[in-house]
């Protein structure tokens, strides 16, 4: 009997264990993927091992093609697509890009559509919640709804999506899904035009969604309004480097091209019976609103943003573009250099491609997920982009009342909020519901402390794709500028040069305007009096064309002078101008500039602030006794030209001194006034060297060394030289402890490195940190800390040598493939790192090119079956 019981128990246990094993392997267990499916040889991840990791010459049949297409690949993996029709061109672009970058495209659309947690579980739920609140997906759908399928943009989006879906069909047939998809078991859905627009929205967010009003709210709460506006003024206290000082005339703001896709439409339905809210009901009215509530709301929104993946917040801005013409350049035509700075990733944000069809002949950098070339050159014009940096995000304190849930008070009446519901799928657990309330301004981002909504320019549908398609086709400045009229968000400076010797910059996009008296740098009253009234008319946005200097420079600096008649942002928004200053110094008054001159300048690591302040420091040190190490460090600085090269020991001394100097001045205030650094370390931590404080420090050091800011609150009086000496002493002491007693061995590269992280977050798939020069203020900028992963995402130089003739070269840190197993995964990094360039021209699909080793895909429509 006992033996029988044992046998039954054994059988039952075996059944349970077998069922558990099969279930776990077949369906996954919580966050553990279905490893049976994922790891079975021949399928799962191993099927992708058999996929071609580069490109082999072959003929492929693609449904939807309206004509033959050839795709020639250079040995570095750069694709040149030549198509018989425009629609086939974009279909092929979708197919080719998906072939090498689909994982990246899928992650981008998931990010914007709030579907990352479906892949990676709860850690990314906060990101999904934030994005669905902000409304990238809603905006993309509104954009697509407003796009005619037969329009230029509609045709390109539809064709591109077809190409991506042709690739998905191929993969489904071959089971060669990317490793990420196999490991997660989440099969990607078909690509749609909305997905492309979501990817565009994600980039818009990276470049355009700012939180400076929240920082101002936190600073006002701690420092007080007077000190906040003295130290973080609207107009910077130092001289700026506008690319066009004007003058500009004031014209009334014009309406946006479309209404905010994330705002509640105000209908005739209002709750008119309600009285105006009593003061006790108010959660904010005007600038006198309780600062504690505003600070609490700011903290809540900023906390929500911390869940975003790295690089999705607009924190750093170091892009450069300049152009020279006429006598300034060799040959007398025009030459342009551009290096947009972004979060560096593997794979890169960019996919280099050449597109040729009856309607297009353009080469440059494309964004995986979006048709067309975003920056590059065609037969007659070239262009690059820097971020305009204007304030595009406005926060509103909505007036609500407990007695009126789901309503807000606006323009004299209580209005119903529009509510949107989502279920966010979460891998390994149940879906999480999310409710988003929309007001007339936009989505409510928090109800903590102060119901706060955001009016973000990225929430307004803008026909950027039509603009960029027309830019791709532009043959002159007239057509180029005209194309940019439909550009909305993000506002960008388009630097331009053409084969006729013209150069220009156009700051295209939305510049939201508020009524006089509003303070848009702070969260504003949401009752209607501070609402956005429109945008700056296109004719009055910052722009310059063929200036007498034959040189135009844009580097995220304030583009116009202080007399500009519109509000575009505060000193927190713009670069202090050290980079444009250095570019001006290097190129101004030069003649016959060459490509090599531009290339050298793109790798310039001179810190303009060091050039300005080091002499002051040396003066401060002249009258005091120094230790041997301090004397050696001072000697290094005295012989230094401000270049933050990897081998420079003076650069280490300067960098450490600057951090200590700024902290020495402001830390006592920060501590005394309890500035809540932890709520927004990126914006408020002194070691991150907030730009307005650097500008304050530069001005005070030079012309107001007795400013009261140098004296700590409640402490004894200090001057700039005294604080500088203390900072220098501290810097030398700390460097001695860290790098040894000999200052000449304190190479900057021992403290400072660059790295290129993988979009998967895996350090093993990243480009490891390596000693590097540069800092956030150098033309070759390295931002984001001592291990910088933010910098020149693309370098390009185009020199026009004749009508329709250009010498063009480029480099970018990455590779054409997103598959880490591919030899094209990071093969271009070394070229970029060495400061070299590759030719930026199409690879012809000619027999000669094939003999030279170029692989060619011949894409054809499917053969019709004979009946």
């Amino acid at each position: 009997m006992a033996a029988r019981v044992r046998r039954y128990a054994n059988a039952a246990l075996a059944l349970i264990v077998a069922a558990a094993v099969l279930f776990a392997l077949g369906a996954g267990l919580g966050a553990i993927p279905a490893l049976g499916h994922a790891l079975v040889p021949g399928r799962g991840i191993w099927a992708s091992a058999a996929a071609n990791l580069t490109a082999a010459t072959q003929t492929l049949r693609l449904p939807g093609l309206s004509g033959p297409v050839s795709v020639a690949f250079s040995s570095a993996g750069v694709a040149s697509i030549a198509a018989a029709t425009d629609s086939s061109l974009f279909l092929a672009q979708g197919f080719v890009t998906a072939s090498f970058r689909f994982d990246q495209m899928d992650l981008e659309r998931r990010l914007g559509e709030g579907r990352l947690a479906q892949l990676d579980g709860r850690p990314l739920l906060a990101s999904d919640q934030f994005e669905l609140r902000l409304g990238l997906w809603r905006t993309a759908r509104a954009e697509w709804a407003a796009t005619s399928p037969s329009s230029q943009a509609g045709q390109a989006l539809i064709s591109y999506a077809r190409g991506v879906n042709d690739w998905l069909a191929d993969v489904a047939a071959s089971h060669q899904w990317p490793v990420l998809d196999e490991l997660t078991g989440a099969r990607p859905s078909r690509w749609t035009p909305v997905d492309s627009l979501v990817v565009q929205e994600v980039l818009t967010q990276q470049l355009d969604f700012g939180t400076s009003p929240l920082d101002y709210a936190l600073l006002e709460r701690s420092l007080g309004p007077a000190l906040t506006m003295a130290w973080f003024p609207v107009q910077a206290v130092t001289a700026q480097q506008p690319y066009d000082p004007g003058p500009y005339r004031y014209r009334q703001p014009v309406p946006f091209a479309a209404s905010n896709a994330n705002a509640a439409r105000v209908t005739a339905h209002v709750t008119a019976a309600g009285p105006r809210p009593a003061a006790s009901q108010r959660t904010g009215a005007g600038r006198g609103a309780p600062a504690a509530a505003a600070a609490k709301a700011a903290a809540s929104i900023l906390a929500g943003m911390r869940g975003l993946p790295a690089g999705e917040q607009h924190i750093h801005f170091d892009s450069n573009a300049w152009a020279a013409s006429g006598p300034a350049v060799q040959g007398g035509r025009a030459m342009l250099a551009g290096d947009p700075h972004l979060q560096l990733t593997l794979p890169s944000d960019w996919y280099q491609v050449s597109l040729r069809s009856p309607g297009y002949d353009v080469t440059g950098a494309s964004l995986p997920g979006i048709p067309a070339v975003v920056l590059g050159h065609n037969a007659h014009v070239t262009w690059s982009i820097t971020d305009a940096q204007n304030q595009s995000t406005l926060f509103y304190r909505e007036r609500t009342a407990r007695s009126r849930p789901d309503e807000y008070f606006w323009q004299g009446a209580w209005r119903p909020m529009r509510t949107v519901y989502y279920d966010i799928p979460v891998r390994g657990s149940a879906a999480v519901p999310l409710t988003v309330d929309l007001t007339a301004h936009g989505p409510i981002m928090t109800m903590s402390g102060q119901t706060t909504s955001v009016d973000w320019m990225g929430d307004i549908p803008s026909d950027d794709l039509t603009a960029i398609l027309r830019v791709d086709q532009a043959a002159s400045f007239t057509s180029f500028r005209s194309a940019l009229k439909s550009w909305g968000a993000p506002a960008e400076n388009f630097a331009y040069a053409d084969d006729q010797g013209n150069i220009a910059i156009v700051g295209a996009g939305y510049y939201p305007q508020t009524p006089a008296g509003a303070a848009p740098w702070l969260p504003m009253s949401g009752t209607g009096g501070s609402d956005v009234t429109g945008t700056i008319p296109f004719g009055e946005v910052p722009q310059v064309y063929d200036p007498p200097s034959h040189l135009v420079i844009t580097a995220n600096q304030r583009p116009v002078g202080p007399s500009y008649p519109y509000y575009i942002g505060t000193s927190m928004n713009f670069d202090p101008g050290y980079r444009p200053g250095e570019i001006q110094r290097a190129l101004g008054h030069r003649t016959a500039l060459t490509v090599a001159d531009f290339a050298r300048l793109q790798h310039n690591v001179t810190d303009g602030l060091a050039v300005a302040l080091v002499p002051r420091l040396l003066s401060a040190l002249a009258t005091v006794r120094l230790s041997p190490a301090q004397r050696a460090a001072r000697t290094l600085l005295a012989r230094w030209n401000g270049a933050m090269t990897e081998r420079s020991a003076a650069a280490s001394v300067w960098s450490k001194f600057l951090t200590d100097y700024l902290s020495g001045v402001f830390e006592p205030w920060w501590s005394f006034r309890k500035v809540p650094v932890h709520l927004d370390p990126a914006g408020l931590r002194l070691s991150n060297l907030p730009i307005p404080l650097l500008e304050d420090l530069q001005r005070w050091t030079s012309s107001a060394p007795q400013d009261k800011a140098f004296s700590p609150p409640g402490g004894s009086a200090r001057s700039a030289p005294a604080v500088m000496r203390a900072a220098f002493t501290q810097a030398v002491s700390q460097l001695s402890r860290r790098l040894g007693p000999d200052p000449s061995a304190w190479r900057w590269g021992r403290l400072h490195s660059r790295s290129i992280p993988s979009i998967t977050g895996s350090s093993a798939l990243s480009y490891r940190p390596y000693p590097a020069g540069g800092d956030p203020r150098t033309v070759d900028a390295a931002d984001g800390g001592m291990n910088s992963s933010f910098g020149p995402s693309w370098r390009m130089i185009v020199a026009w040598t004749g009508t329709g003739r250009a010498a063009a070269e480029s480099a970018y840190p990455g590779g054409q493939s997103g598959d880490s197993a591919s030899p094209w995964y990071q093969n271009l990094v070394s070229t970029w790192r060495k400061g070299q360039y590759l030719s930026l021209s199409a690879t012809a699909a000619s027999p000669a090119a094939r003999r030279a080793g170029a692989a060619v895909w011949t894409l054809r429509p499917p053969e019709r079956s004979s009946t």
Partner: protein
Amino acid sequence: MTPASHTRRPPGSLPQQAGQTQRTAARPPARRGQGWWLAWIVLAAALVALGSVVGLWYLPFAAGVLLGAATRLGRLGLAVSLAGLLLLGPVAWGVVLGAESLSGAAVGATARAAAAIAGLPALAALTIVATLLIALVQAAAGLWLGRALTPRSAWRPRRAGKEPEVPGMP
């Protein structure tokens, strides 16, 4: 059981107790040798390997169930059982991986990427070992289930004493 009796016993057979006899009528029509069983196991392993190529990831389990039943019915010993376990699981899948690698597939690089994406150290060996372990665990679970569900064969002699168990087998 003494070491001597153990060595005299044909490999793979169950040990006989002293004085035990077998009735001819209860013998199976054709008792097979261990080579015969191994041949079937190798054939099954080939099927497991082929099945993996078309995505039948659960075949090591199914084959393990059959192996378990066979160990009961065929009175197979520990050595054959263990050999079967290895052949039907990791060897079958390993051969496919090896063949892919020999044909030029980027097995190592893919394994490294998978480990890295999974948040593990980026060692190709980790993914490869995990793959083979999954096959082994399946086959073992199947073997256990096959043995547990298979009744003792009718030809087995009834004994007064306790039936000896294969060491290590449930």
